């Protein structure tokens, strides 16, 4: 076990996997950084610090700085994967899914099915997401629900350094396209990371804590907010089952349903607007599959049906918070 943050866990995993498998290549904007400048290649080493040093170690055929051309980045990853490689494409911000959507949605996601199951497309698309740093409406969004809705894609959201390693390793060894979401406010989160080969199968949620009174389902940074809420509630003797989904496609339905069958109360926390959201999806799952277990209406804690604003005050008002989560848990318990 070594202690490191999520940023370091991702960089180290990419490094180790590239060393193990010569078919892995990394491409994206500034993943090397500094090409064509006085500072020279590696002057930046990736703006998130997750790709630094890879170019020097693995060379320009496997670590490729691209122009600002997101469709070409994702499309090239799709083509390289069809040609037998294991590309890791980086979208500097998940919001840029908007620029590259066709290559994700009409191309990469559908190849295997359209081609009669006779091909695989082992591409990993790493994308940096999330609000909380005043990056405003086009650099803060959590578009995982959009991609979760697309058959053919897998969607992964690590919340700890150990999970970052285990889930990224799994992504790089699987044969399907994986959308790997990295929250920009979580890169510095530290924790112990298992040494050696460490894989976490997709579709297995992490039970962060078991409390038995209310089920709280969250992913990404909302897991951390929910933990804070759970700490406060525990002081009042309220026990929370906190489920970190880890992957939204596939979804660990059993973990959610098993917990709700015990607690009868559900709070879903989702860093996105409410309509057609992950929160709505999970509330529907529980309403249709665990109706008779419910003792209170499911609570959806999301942002409003509005873009994410710039102002610090407005951004805080947009985001779910430990306080709003705590309030929702108390409401479900007070329901009669």
């Amino acid at each position: 076990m070594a202690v490191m943050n999520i940023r370091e866990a991702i960089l180290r995993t990419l490094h180790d996997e590239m060393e193990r498998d010569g078919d892995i290549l990394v491409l994206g904007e500034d993943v090397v950084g500094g090409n064509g400048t006085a500072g020279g290649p590696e002057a930046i080493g990736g703006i998130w610090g997750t790709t630094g040093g890879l170019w020097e170690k693995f060379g320009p055929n496997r670590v490729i700085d691209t122009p600002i051309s997101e469709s070409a980045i994702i499309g090239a990853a799709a083509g390289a994967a069809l040609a037998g490689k294991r590309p890791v494409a980086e979208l500097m911000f998940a919001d840029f899914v908007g620029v590259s959507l066709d290559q994700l949605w009409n191309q990469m996601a559908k190849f295997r099915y359209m081609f009669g199951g006779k091909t695989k497309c082992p591409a990993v698309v790493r994308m940096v997401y999330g609000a909380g740093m005043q990056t405003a409406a086009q650099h803060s969004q959590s578009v995982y629900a959009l991609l979760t809705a697309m058959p053919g894609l897998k969607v992964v959201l690590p919340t700890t350094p150990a999970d970052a390693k285990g889930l990224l390793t799994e992504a790089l060894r699987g044969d399907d396209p994986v959308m790997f979401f990295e929250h920009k406010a979580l890169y510095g989160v530290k924790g112990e990371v298992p040494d050696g080969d460490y894989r976490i199968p997709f579709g297995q949620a992490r039970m962060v804590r078991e409390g038995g009174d209310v089920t709280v389902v969250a992913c990404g940074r909302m897991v951390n907010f929910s933990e804070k809420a759970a700490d406060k509630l525990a002081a009042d003797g309220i026990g929370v089952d906190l489920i970190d989904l880890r992957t939204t496609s596939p979804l660990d339905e059993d973990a959610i349903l098993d917990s709700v069958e015990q607690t009868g109360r559900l709070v879903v926390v989702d860093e996105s607007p409410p309509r057609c959201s992950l929160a709505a999806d999970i509330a529907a799952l529980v309403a249709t599959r665990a109706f008779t277990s419910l003792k209170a209406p499911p609570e959806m804690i999301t942002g409003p049906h509005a873009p994410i604003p710039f102002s610090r005050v407005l951004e805080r008002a947009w985001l779910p918070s430990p306080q709003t989560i705590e309030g929702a848990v108390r409401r479900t318990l007070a329901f009669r």
Partner: protein
Amino acid sequence: MLQLGHDQLLGAYRRMSTIRAFEERLHDEIKTGEIGGFTHLYAGQEAVAVGICDQLTVDDKIVSTHRGHGHCIAKGCDVKGMMLEIYGKADGLCKGRAGSMHIADLEVGMLGANGIVGGGAPQAVGAALAAKMDGKGRVGIAFSGDGACNQGTTFEAMNLAVVTKAPAIFVFENNHYSEHTGVDYAVGTAKDIASRAEAFGMKVWRANGCDFFDTFEQFRDLLEYVRAGNGPAAIELDTERFYGHFEGDPQRYRGSGELDRIREERDCLKAFRKVVTDAALLTDAEMDAIDDEVRILIDEAVAQARAGADPDPATVADDVYAEYY
């Protein structure tokens, strides 16, 4: 005069004849109502697909377009499997999930036809980057039309290929119509797509896409250049589409007598036959025999496709993932 052996010439003729017969038969069969969806026929452009694909190996990758049957046949896809696929049958090349617009056969390096105009160009660059990693002189080829040359994906792909020196080849088949809109209107650099590719920083070639020999020779030079590691290149082929954008297209945009004229003056099969018989390289009898064999092959393919079993509805959600739960 191009130095191609007897067998190579006969093979090229067979593939062009197969594409023509396949498409003309589909044109007739679609009227029966047995084939659903959208079908875009390649007839008229055979010299391009065959003149190019005949020079590729199975390890060179191509990405195709919505008008992809010719590329598939030229690259080596099984003709009967294709016909079954177009009829939506279980034994089709893609189990009836692709239809005409999404046929692929990775085993022969055919990475897929594409329903999105311009969708394939970045993927060809990805295949080229993969080839560059392997360092064995292989290439990735994007077939595009004059329609796709206006898509941002194509621009992005060309620039990415240039800056990464990827062994990518952009083949622009200019058949003068982007769906139902004329190239003179839709392409700002009217009648000259190659100059766009040149402006992106790559070497370009131009050829008469209705002339197998010109296409073959120009592409041979281009291929040698790209295989040698000089980075990407592009070629524009001036060609003709004998049918509409899709089957059922009334083609009201055509000039009076235009279709008769291009079939008379710009038929690549007729032109091929004239060249090889004038030069006494092949005989009419040899090519007639191939046409007969092709006709039997297409008859069998249609009969097999019509009789083929439908996919099992229980398989509707199979093969979405390699592994899910």
